[in-house]
């Protein structure tokens, strides 16, 4: 089924929150998922994978220890959401000096954050990991993946972000997303964790007692 990008963003935010992310990160995860879908990438599949990693084992979803030098976790794999958020917080530094990140899960989920940095700093950035080479100015994306690799690889040993020459191809974005029904259902299951179970009080008072609505 085709979904609007607002539906993708709204569900992604709830799912990310349901998976235990703080609200601010959930908002950014939702915008990232929407951006991926608008650029013809399977954002819902990636978000699902990122949230699974986040829930499974906190060792697999670390924030970077420091924001200088090579970025790495205390121990275990870096979370692309925490790393992506940190990346956007250091936009000027990233755009001018680039950054190297070691041991990151779901590396493609970094792309929307790199794109946001490119857009805000008005630069063109290159993002690479083994088998993947991506250039973006924030609105346009040029992706190259080696034949034997998938864009949706679960982990990258080393990810490098550098400045690049401007892109020449025109921007093209989609206005609908077509996630697999399984991913959509899984995100809905996570989102449901944010809904308060109904109680007698909430049924009676939650939306406002009051006068009849028929006349």
């Amino acid at each position, binding site marked *: 089924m085709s979904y*609007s990008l607002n539906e993708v963003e709204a569900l992604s935010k709830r799912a990310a929150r349901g998976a235990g992310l*703080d609200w*601010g990160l959930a*908002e950014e995860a939702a915008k990232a998922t929407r951006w991926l879908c608008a650029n013809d990438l399977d954002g819902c599949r990636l978000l699902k994978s990122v949230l699974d990693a986040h829930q499974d084992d906190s060792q697999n979803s670390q924030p970077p220890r420091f924001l200088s030098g090579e970025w790495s976790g205390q121990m275990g794999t870096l979370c692309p959401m925490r790393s992506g958020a940190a990346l956007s917080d*250091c936009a000027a530094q990233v755009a001018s000096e680039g950054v190297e990140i070691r041991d990151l899960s779901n590396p493609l989920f970094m792309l929307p954050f790199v794109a*946001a940095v490119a857009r805000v700093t008005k630069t063109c950035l290159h993002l690479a990991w083994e088998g993947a080479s991506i250039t973006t100015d924030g609105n346009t994306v040029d992706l190259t993946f080696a034949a034997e690799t998938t864009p949706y690889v679960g982990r990258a040993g080393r990810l490098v972000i550098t400045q690049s020459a401007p892109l020449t191809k025109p921007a093209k974005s989609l*206005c609908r997303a077509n996630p697999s029904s399984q991913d959509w259902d899984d995100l809905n299951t996570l989102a449901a964790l944010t809904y308060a179970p109904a109680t007698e009080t909430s049924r009676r008072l939650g939306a406002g007692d009051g006068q009849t609505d*028929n006349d």
Partner: protein
Amino acid sequence: MTGRAPLTVCRRDPKRVMRLSRLGSLHQCRLSFMRILTRRMADEAWEFTCSVFNIAADGTGHAVYCAKGPERTYSLVAFAHDLAPEMRSDRVIAEAWDATFTLFDGIPDASEIARLSQNVPLQEAGRVSESELSLSRANRSVRLWKHVVEALAAGQQPDPAQLTSVGYLMRTTAVYGSGKFGAADRELIADRPEFAAPFQAEMLSVFLTRAFVLDLVEHAAQVKGGDTAVRLDPKVARQLGIGNSTGLGMAPFIVNHPVLFNNWIMAREEALLRVRQVCRATRAEVAQFEEVLGRSARSIAQWHSEHPVQIIKLDALRGDLDALFSYLTEHDLTKKNYPWDQLVRWSEANLSEEGQELVVSLVMEPYGPLVDDLSADLSDDHSDVFFIAGSMTVRILKNLIQSCFGWALELDWSNPKNCARAWYVSAEKLEPRIGSRFEEPIEDYEQPLAPARDAVRAFVALGEWDQDKTVAEFLLVHPEHRHTIRRVQISATAPYSEIQDNTISEDVLPIDMLRAKLSFFGATHFDPRSDRWVRICMFQGAPYPCELTKDNADYWVYPGSEAGE
């Protein structure tokens, strides 16, 4: 004369404007979304047709109403249903309605009508596509519907008193837009001039819905009365709007869209400032103000509510009107310097918040050329404010919190009264709700709709940090404050982005938030039915699509319009 004077006043202080009691006293104005729509359609000479009216004798079927603008045509596709009385509920949680609607982008063909007929009547349980710009439904006012059908069928006009007491034949219970249930995202249509201002597609759908409802009631009377039946007198028809019941679903909107809400309030405040800076008012301008004031007083006379809070506010407002008329008798505004500024200052000293905000809305009326261009600033389509400025120092961030939420830093947040409520989404209905934090098991599900409390929490955490560290470093350790810090940074450039009140206090009235939003739609006759939902009327007094001209496109909101009573 509308010459600009040296700056003697500035825009009103957000700390006063953004209090909930004042936001809950806002009135429609020239920048309201319904009036922006009717002005544009009249200026551009839009053409309206009913291309299909396939309604059977039992009142069921479908109809299509087309609105043709300079470049594009939009079609309201309406489905009329036979709803059992016990199924009729205005709550957003209802599952069946008297009529259901979608605004189609273009002119639908038979296959599209067939697709929509399978989905639109189901509302939330169906799916629409990127060809649809809205999804909505409406229920009859059973009482008035029956009376009007019976009167018209018998060849008579309905009783004016009954029309006035209800004000509409149908009321919508939700008008969904922007990507909801599969519809087109706002981003898809935001670059069309006709949809540049907020909620124009939704307003257009309601404007056309009103035409359908009139045709439907006349059809029902025709079926019942045959040759005896008459049509509704156009002047009488014009006094019927479309009702709307709005509940808590709308309240979080103004918190969740801080930049957009800032832009609405900023435009209104800027319009007020421009009018206050008018050095001398002409006799014609003063006369126009006095005319809309008089007509507004008539509208207010017809505004009824049974809610104790609104009854008190209405009483005060009626007293304010008397005081205003006295002021105008005693002061010749054409002889004063900065007459509107003086009037606003006088109102601040002498009127209730309802009256003060009415004055703000009304003083803009003679000054369309001075303020109407602000309608271009109401949207938020190109901002990158979502991005956190991580290089900001902790010191500067703390200063920002102090300047935006200083009052909240003084509040004792450990006092249960100050955090008695919590906003949540219910599993049963997937709708926003507000509950009692200490009496219901909802805190774990709390939505981030208490920006002031959260700002205080961030401020406390920041207090333990070296003032020269960066926000990026702070957030690496404290991701739980990201949403708050984003808002605080937004407030630096958007002074009206934050409600300057406690949205989780024991005595918070969600209807204040509803009214703030609905006033920008252009709604009138706010009638709170509890502290959590409100009835309003839309397009009451407006010309019907086929009657729309430049002469009647703007001031219809005030009874006794140009078309004359």
